[in-house]
């Protein structure tokens, strides 16, 4: 029924091309590689010629390693990796919340203001920094937050602090960098929704005496919920899965979980182990996002709005 309508509007030829491309995108580029990784994570670390050979078998040892560490580990648990795992998720959640608090006022302002030209300029100013590539932006943050960086020099010049603060070690640079990297992904979904909010509703609430915070609590935020959840989901997922920013801006003692995955893939050359770590991260992120959505009563369909 839906398919019939779909072919009617797009034509048979175009319809098949669109369907084919979508299928290719989802199955060939997303599902199959993930499935391969998933399957790989249940295999032992073998040299390529032996894969599928007599020494190959299915095992949970890669997952066990994340939880308990190497065989005979005196700690009982793989404390280092687990700590990195927890810290990554907490930090990603923190970055998400900070981005939300920062972006909501901007999105509200952009969405509700009528001044066309100025708003377009603001949006442009938000977009332009993203023409600069990620590495360069990360290094720029390093310059800002470094020991003799712009921020420290500035604070010391005005005698706010005596000596430089190690923003890098304190992970301030990392959080700022991550937050900055995904600001647009937070702003635009919210902006889209808030833009369609009828201004009269805000005026009606004002007319009935509602103070500004109540207007946001009862009218704007409930209405913007799909945009908020869509923005938060993206920022959280991408922060948790970021690699470049933690690599460049992270303090010497703090690893990001993706860096562990990267090390297993690259330095360690242990693909099954890396796959297991990546899968755990993916599943954990999914569980967190879905539970938060459930908590705030957001439907899956709202995310697509």
């Amino acid at each position: 029924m839906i398919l019939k309508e779909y072919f009617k509007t797009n034509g048979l030829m175009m319809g098949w091309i669109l369907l084919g491309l979508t299928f290719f995108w989802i199955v060939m580029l997303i599902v199959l590689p993930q499935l391969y990784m998933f399957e790989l994570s249940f295999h032992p670390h073998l040299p390529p010629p032996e894969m599928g050979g007599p020494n190959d078998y299915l095992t949970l040892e890669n997952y066990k390693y994340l939880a308990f560490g190497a065989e005979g580990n005196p700690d009982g648990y793989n404390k280092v990796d687990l700590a990195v795992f927890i810290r990554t998720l907490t930090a990603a959640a923190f970055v998400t919340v900070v981005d939300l608090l920062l972006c909501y006022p901007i999105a509200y302002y952009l969405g509700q203001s009528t001044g066309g030209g100025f708003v377009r300029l603001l949006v442009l100013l938000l977009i332009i920094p993203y023409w600069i590539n990620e590495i360069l932006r990360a290094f720029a943050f390093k310059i800002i937050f470094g020991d003799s960086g712009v921020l420290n020099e500035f604070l010391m010049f005005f005698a706010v602090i005596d000596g430089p603060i190690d923003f890098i070690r304190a992970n301030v640079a990392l959080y700022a960098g991550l937050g900055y990297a995904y600001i647009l992904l937070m702003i635009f979904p919210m902006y889209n929704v808030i833009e369609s909010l009828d201004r009269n509703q805000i005026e009606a609430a004002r007319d009935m005496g509602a103070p500004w915070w109540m207007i946001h609590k009862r009218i704007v935020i409930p209405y913007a919920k799909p945009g908020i959840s869509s923005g938060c989901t993206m920022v959280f997922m991408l922060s948790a899965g970021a690699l470049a920013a933690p690599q460049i801006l992270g303090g010497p003692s703090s690893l990001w979980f993706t860096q562990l995955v990267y090390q297993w893939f690259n330095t360690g050359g242990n693909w099954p182990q890396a796959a297991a770590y990546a899968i755990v991260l993916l599943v954990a992120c999914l569980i967190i996002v879905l539970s938060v959505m459930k908590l705030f009563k957001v439907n899956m369909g709202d995310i697509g709005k």
Partner: protein
Amino acid sequence: MSSGVDVDLKNLWIKFGDFVAVRDANVHINGGDFFSFLGGSGCGKTTILRAVSGFLDPAEGEILIGGNNMVGKGPNERPTALIFQNLALFPLMTVWENITFSLEVAGATLGERRKRADELLDMIALPDQGNKLPSQLSGGQKQRVAIARALCAEPDVLLLDEPLSALDLKLRHHMRAELREIQQRVGITFIYITHDQGEALTMSDNIAVMRTAVIDQIADGKSIYDDPSTSFVASFVGTNNLFRGKVTDISEGIATIDTNRSGTLRARVSTGATGKLGVGDDAMMFIRPEAFSIVDQKTETGTQIAANVQRSEFEGTSYNVYTEGNGGKEISVSVTNRGDAHMYDSGAALNLEFDPQRAVVVPAGELASE
């Protein structure tokens, strides 16, 4: 409910930059009246309403509600409630939450809010609909919810910005009666904005007719219709036949007009135009289509126009007869359907007679564009 409170606009000017949206408006609205601002789009009527509700500040002048100047106070500090053109119900709140939002703002308990919601839902004849969402209601029901929500705060003045314009014709007619009925029951002052003269005439105690930025006349519906002060009001409200000409004589309130194409005609000088019209002035004379009667006898008293029928229509309650006067002037005549046939053949010669008391003369001026 609070009883009627007077609203006064004194020398009110509203400007947007250099653009004057409202020019020197002076209006007195009696407490408990249903008062309408009637005018075309862009005439400034909504601007006046927004100034009364507190969403914009006038450049000059005073807005008095119950004798207190409201200028400078925010919408939440005024004893007014506004019903928006699109109603602006909160889509994510249930009907009862919508209705009692002003109580929620005031910090009322859930029990108080529930109780008040039930009272108001009874008043608007929507009991047991409180837990629905606005989107589950029909157009007329939403309308009533918007009214209940506005009345919940017990305002002294209810402001309505064309709230019926989104409804279909039949419902609109029904809601007119209902609005009027609610207004009389609660007894507070209603200020109603509309471009629909039918709404203004049927519901209002008094009407202000607005031309661009200016109020032309404030009067009850009958006076607006029968005794317009200006050419704009005469041409804006209802249908009217316009005769242009020069005043040749005025005596005892009756002016004699030398019309351009229909000879010399006599008509009453409008009350609002008394003293503004002298011999030799350009004048506009208006005769309603239903003010004509078709007579056999020809007279020369300045109360008859000879005309030929162009075409006629049957409209149920009346026949519309479109004629052309001997001077080439188009004149439309409405003949009440009393059961006898009044379909005239084209070309038939008629004598159109009118009572000079039912025709009005005003100084020549601006006309309402159709």
